[in-house]
């Protein structure tokens, strides 16, 4: 099985575009739109990397990230966080919660691809 990414994003057209980009780049992409059960979904997905939106129905991306960092099986999982709120306090909050990379909308496709490749490369080296 190739590289796997789990995309937690409730905007279907953003999810579709990212899925297309990463699939073309050789990733196996699975998408999920609900925050409420996202932690369980991530824990059972065996993904190499998570792309996580901040504003999700059911549970915020920030809360999901904190829960991931509290679990042994997901503590070190690379997480790229996407948000429309680029204020420094949100960035600080995400960094304190243990985010691997923080990206604000509207992002470019190249930025997403670069971030995903970088995070995966870093995780592979550790």
């Amino acid at each position: 099985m190739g590289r796997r990414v789990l995309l937690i994003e409730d905007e279907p057209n953003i999810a579709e575009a990212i899925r297309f980009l990463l699939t073309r780049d050789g990733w196996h992409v699975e998408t999920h739109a609900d925050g409420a059960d996202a932690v369980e979904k991530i824990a059972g997905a065996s993904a190499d990397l998570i792309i996580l939106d901040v504003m999700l129905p059911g549970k915020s991306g920030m809360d999901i990230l904190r829960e991931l960092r509290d679990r042994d099986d997901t503590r070190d999982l690379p997480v790229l966080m996407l948000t429309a709120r680029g204020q420094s306090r949100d960035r600080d909050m995400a960094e304190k919660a243990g985010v691997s990379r923080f990206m604000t909308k509207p992002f470019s496709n190249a930025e997403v691809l670069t971030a995903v490749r970088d995070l995966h490369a870093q995780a592979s080296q550790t």
Partner: protein
Amino acid sequence: MARDTLTGSRIRERRQVVGFRQADLARKVGISASYLNLIEHNRRRIGGKLLVNIASALSVEPSALTEGAEAALISALREAAATDGAAIAETDRADELAGRFPGWAELLAQLFRRVNSLERTVETLSDRLTHDPNLAASLHEVLSTAAAIRSTAAILAEPGELAAEWRDRFHRNLHQDAERLAESSKSLVAYLDDTDAGEDRTGVPVEQVETFVAARGHHFAELERGEAVANVPLSELRSGAARDIARKWLDIYASDAQAMPLDRFVDALDRTGLEPMALCHEFGVDLVAVFRRLASLPEGTLPHEVGLVVCDASGSILFRKAIAGFALPRHGESCPLWPLFTALGRPLVPIRRRVWQLGRNTAEFDCLAVAWPQEMPDFNADPVYRSIMLILPVPTAERGETVPLPVGSSCRVCPSKECAARREPSVLSEGF
């Protein structure tokens, strides 16, 4: 610098205002010009008959020369220095600046207040971006749609063939998102238009209302005549919040005026003197209403001015009527020793304290305060209190009868070294 050492500066200022040369004034009061020069430079103390003669020659009351009216101004200057320029401003000479150049000093104080007001506006707008859920949701919608459009359009714009199935799907997505962006943009603009309509966000609503009420001399003749509150023009108030606060204030004013008609109230004052409790009994109203009524009388009704401050249970100042010599700093920065705040700890118990504000001004004031529940008490509901304080100047002849309670204006400009209520260090190393 002690209070009365500035008398000379005030004499000089007043002399220049009325256009006398030093020699002219010296001749009128029977002293030499050189001696007057020493007085004006605060190098000779002055009092007694000579002070009375000089005041008479300058057509002012002696107290205007010995006390001045610039205590609040000096306090504002020191506050400005404490906030923005302590390292460069000669804070120990603020009183001299106010005494010798009152116009420039007032301008500086006004600019300081203006800067503070603008800073509050910036904070409010910043707070709004952070905490307004409608604005946050609208912006999130716009940015998320823009992200989808940008990403999809970039895929479509790439060179090379795209499978027909994907191309059609992305075209459809692009169309959907373009429609969505148009709608969300319109919604955002409509929201901003609606909330900003006709409002100038510069200035705090409470301060706008204070300025509005002060410009009317704290007296509304139309309400005294029984006219409706709606007849009072509020167009000069720039924000909807200020107009809302003003209407509530005027409703209470109208209610007070109805309960204590002006002619009867003035008659009662003539009979009883300024005795708030007697006035309560006479009109069957509470102290709070009497305090408000006393602060809204036409100028000249009382032999002296009165000040008034109202705060809520958090200590936030809701209304201020300024009185010369008693510095009322900006909202939320007042001295916790004021009887206004003491009353909050003893609701419904009227408190009367003779106070003087630490600093250069030695004027004494009788502060009458009481805290009252804002709403009718109900079972199992904690009352929310407000507090009101009437500030009455103590006539010069009565000063010294009792030991006044020393209070400050705000910690930053208060010289008190030992104060359990101090919130933050003072910029003053010694008394004025």
